[in-house]
């Protein structure tokens, strides 16, 4: 075993420069090519596009940061933009306040030592994550439908019919309704990540805590929770990135105008409408790219904050 390793090492050490480069290209090349073509190039092309302005004759003229100024100061653009930004923050907070705590609780329950049907629960809770948003959107639209929805009949059966409202169609409730549907869909992801982290905690630590007199709950709060903080941090930053890139569920349920009165409009739907157009609105490549670039910057700032303010101060334990 040791010989084989040394042999492999020697093979690389003894390699000529040319063949070493070939080896690097062989292993790294595919990833470099794929990321360059499908991630890095489109990102720069988008930023590049955002610096140009579409003329009425269809030509594109260099406009510097003019598009950003228009987006942030001209009320035609800034009102929808800040509305979408606010809604997006709200969308994110709902996920942080509902999805991640529930994910954590589910993971904690799954890791209880005497739980039966563990794998079944895990699969069932994770299932919606793997379904297409179109199916999710359609099913929930049916469940919540005031005409044929089961939620109305259910509330009526409980004598709580007065609580029912067309939640997806009211300005005051549309956004929170789609947010909660999204939470329902994605709660499996924090659950699985946290569950895996919990599994990695050695039994000895819990045994020691038990010997010291902690019950299951106390052991979770004082021993396990601090050990999974890095994972919770990771889950939060993933939630942030996914939420500010979100688009599909809202588009599937509420269309590109995300109404009523843009109450469910988030950055993704605003971008889609601007870039690809809607009904009579023609797509605007430059303003669409400007919005996409702003989305990128917002996500970048958020991730940077996480990296510099939280990640670096986090203590890691290795077992």
């Amino acid at each position, binding site marked *: 075993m040791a010989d084989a390793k040394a042999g492999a090492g020697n093979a690389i050490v003894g390699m000529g420069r040319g063949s070493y480069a070939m080896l690097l290209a062989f292993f790294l090349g595919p990833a470099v090519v794929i990321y360059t073509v499908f991630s890095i190039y489109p990102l720069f092309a988008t930023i590049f596009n955002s610096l140009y302005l579409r003329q009425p004759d269809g030509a594109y003229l260099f406009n510097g940061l003019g598009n950003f100024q228009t987006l942030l100061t001209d009320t*035609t653009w800034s009102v929808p933009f800040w509305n979408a930004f606010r809604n997006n923050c709200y969308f994110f907070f709902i996920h942080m306040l509902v999805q991640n705590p529930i994910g954590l609780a589910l993971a904690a329950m799954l890791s209880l030592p005497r739980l039966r049907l563990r794998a079944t629960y895990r699969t069932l809770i994770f299932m919606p994550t793997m379904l297409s948003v179109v199916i999710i959107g359609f099913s929930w639209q049916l469940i919540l439908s005031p005409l044929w929805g089961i939620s109305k009949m259910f509330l009526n059966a409980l004598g709580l019919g007065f609580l029912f409202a067309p939640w997806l169609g009211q300005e005051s409730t549309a956004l929170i309704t789609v947010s909660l549907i999204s939470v329902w869909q994605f709660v499996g992801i924090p659950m699985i990540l946290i569950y895996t982290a919990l599994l990695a905690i050695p039994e000895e630590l819990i045994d020691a805590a038990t010997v010291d007199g902690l019950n299951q709950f106390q052991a979770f709060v004082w021993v396990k929770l601090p050990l999974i903080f890095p994972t919770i941090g990771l889950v939060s930053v993933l939630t942030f990135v996914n939420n500010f890139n979100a688009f599909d569920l809202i588009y599937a349920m509420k269309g590109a105008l995300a109404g*009523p009165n843009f109450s469910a409009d988030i950055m993704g739907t605003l971008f889609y409408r601007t870039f690809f157009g809607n009904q009579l609105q023609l797509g605007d490549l430059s303003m669409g790219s400007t919005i996409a670039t702003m989305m990128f910057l917002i996500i970048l700032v958020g991730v940077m904050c996480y990296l510099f303010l939280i990640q670096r101060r986090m203590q890691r334990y290795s077992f």
Partner: protein
Amino acid sequence: MLKTGLKTMLLTAVAMTAFASVASAGKITIESWRNDDATIWKEKIIPAFQAKHPDITVEFTPTAPKEYNAALNARLEGGTAGDIITCRPFDASLELFTKGHLASLNDLSSMAGFSDVAKSAWTTDDGKTTFCVPMASVIHGFIYNKDIFAELKLAEPKTEEEFLAVLETIKNDGKYVPLVLGTNDQWEAATMGFQNIGPNYWKGEEGRKKLIDGTAKLTDPEYVNTFAALAKWGPYMGDGYKAQTYPDSQNLFGLGKGAIYAAGSWDISTFRGQDVPMGAFKAPPPAGSADCYISDHTDIGIGMNAKSANAADAKVFLDWIGSDEFANIFANALPGFFPLSSAKVTISDDVAQTFVGWRGECKSTIRNSYQILSRGTPNLENEMWNVSAQVLNGAMAPDAAGAQLQDGLKKWYAPQQK
């Protein structure tokens, strides 16, 4: 033995395909978003054309409606688009023409059979060049369930007052949803609501042109009154109409649970499939109207890819699209899409015939946001969806709706800034 047989068959098949592609020098393909109509094209329209022109093969290759514009643009830019292009009305097609993707069809002989209003959706702003053959329009009105009307002893309403009285009667009876229309998807509120009843208020083309030249404003009484009329519908719409989607509405009426359906004529074929006993009445004009107006909206045109490798055959096909023969086949195969040519057409579907009959009684107009007025930001059509849905939801006052539309239009449209 069996193997050899199979091989021979395969070889023959390959040879025949090769032969077929050689023989199809006169082959044209049609780009379209009407994937719902694919069978009708394949079984009725194309065979009728080929009976006259056996040397030209036609293939209908539709794309899903939502993806059509983007997909077509990409194919035109990449040079892989078909020879015949189905044209969306107004700016989307105008842009294709200015970019040089659509050919001018001024020299097409069948073009003479179309009125200027019919051609308006596919003509340059200066009126000089037409680049698509007008194919079909859709008409707005109301479809009602005949059985429910008979049961409650109701007659087709002739005025807005009668319309509201009919709705009140159905509501009091309590068994059926009086007016089937939802605001979840927003477009129905604008298209089946505002654009359906509006022409009676703004006097059709006259009012539409005034908006374009800037002599009328969306805050004028005719527009505010249209919204005020819409605002009265709320109490008669189904329970939870704010979350009712377009398919919900179609099902509600299709299952016989709704009495009156705010319609576009394209819905006729949907309900025919569900055997609803249907009748139709046009948008009931408000008290004191002398004339009536209907929304007879140019919706589908058909043009030619400027870079078509088979332009001569494509022109033959387009010429045929302008013929009386096509008009008759199309109108009867797709009740609810009405040919725009001046040809005399008889439609066997009685409801479709009722719709098209209104052309003789009332003046036709197209939707007022479609020509020129939706070119800027904010987009007037999007704004109309938004405010119409809000007015129906009772979340916005009629004058506020007019004011929001006018403010948006004034931001970019010069004739409205005077």
